[in-house]
């Protein structure tokens, strides 16, 4: 979606402010929000692409000033409601009104280590032919999906070069929409800074993005 989260190239956000020796979590509610998000995700009612898209759908006038974990909390609430795990009145009152759906088991603490150390495999073992060879000249498509996409606006319609084929991966646009993995090749594509930003950009600089087959046309 063309949301404010897609902010590469925007102006006006000011200097990058840094804190020396900042803690991992500034408040206990941040740590809890992080952990709740992971524990709820383990229930299997949504995938990671749906989770990212839930954050993106925060209304823009609230997204921009929100802190990082406020965005996560908003996304988590959206996911819990849309998946049917909670009802709006339960969220409002904080009180359970009905039993949880059967067959759902809370993720146990003894499985946390393995889950964190293993992660998930986003590669798909499928014999999908590659549309582009390394070195191929490509144009990022001018698509403007209303749903989830990982193709930033700043690169659409721009010319780049395929630097690397990462192999066959889950396609997030389809995965987030519940349409399945739609496995396809994922490429690292290099765009000259001047191609993206104009003649004032540094001549030698570039931006590299990971782009799926469905985002690219041959130049």
């Amino acid at each position, binding site marked *: 979606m063309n949301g404010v*989260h*897609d*902010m*590469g*190239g*925007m*102006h006006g*956000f000011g200097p*990058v402010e*840094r*804190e020396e020796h900042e803690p*991992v*979590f*500034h*408040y206990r*509610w941040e*740590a*809890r*929000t*992080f*952990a*709740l998000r992971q*524990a709820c995700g383990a229930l299997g009612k949504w995938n990671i692409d749906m989770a990212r898209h839930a954050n993106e759908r925060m209304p823009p006038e609230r997204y*921009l000033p929100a802190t*990082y974990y406020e965005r996560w*909390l908003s996304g988590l*609430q959206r996911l*819990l409601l849309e998946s049917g*795990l*909670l009802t709006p009145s*339960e*969220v409002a009152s*904080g*009180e*359970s009104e009905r039993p*949880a759906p059967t067959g*759902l088991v*809370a993720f*146990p*603490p003894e499985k*946390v*280590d393995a889950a*964190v*150390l*293993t*992660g*998930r495999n*986003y590669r798909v073992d499928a014999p999908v032919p590659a549309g582009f060879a390394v070195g191929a000249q490509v144009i990022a498509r001018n698509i403007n999906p209303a749903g989830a996409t*990982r*193709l*930033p606006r700043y690169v659409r319609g721009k010319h780049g070069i395929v630097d690397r084929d*990462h192999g066959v991966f889950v396609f997030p646009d389809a995965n987030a929409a519940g349409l399945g993995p739609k496995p396809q090749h994922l490429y690292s594509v290099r765009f000259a*800074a001047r191609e993206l930003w104009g003649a004032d950009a*540094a001549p*030698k600089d*570039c*931006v590299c*993005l*990971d*782009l799926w087959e469905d985002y690219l046309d041959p130049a």
Partner: protein
Amino acid sequence: MSDHDHDHDESSRFSDVELRVKALASLLVEKGLVNPETLDKLIDTFETRLGPRNGARVVARAWVDPAYRQRLREDASAAIAELGYSGMQGEHMVVVENTPQVHNVVVCTLCSCYPWPVLGLPPVWYKSNAYRSRVVIDPRGVLEEFGLELSRDIEVKVWDSTSEVRYLVLPERPAGTQGMSEEELAALVTRDSMIGTAKL
């Protein structure tokens, strides 16, 4: 304008959020959807077990062992896993090497993607609107704010983490470090040098 003092304004800004999180957590626990011990274990893992010291060991190993550096090039995930680091938000690793001609810097403009197994959770600045928006269009301006000025002869490559591939910058080994042990070398490596906002 940010204010990191825990003064009255900031604590009342978040007191509503605190209550929401507490209510949500107890609701989910009451329904048996979330185990509170799992929450504690997750928090402890990310506060203590994952962090930039992991990535620093990968960097130091690459500096002293050319065969390891080559394995990082060929399959970074496998090479990093040799040191015991793997998993969530680092399943598909790529290491990008700084050279005298090329300086790499990593961002996620769309959210905050970051290589957790080697760097832990990202700092607030990495997730900020300012960094996400500016480093792709004005990397040299951002790096100057970090105190790093690069000559126009150097190529700056910005890596926007749009997929599940996660990027780790391999900084150049600083001069005058011959004869240092791997452990001493690892102690030199900063988190910012592995994101690309600093040189060593």
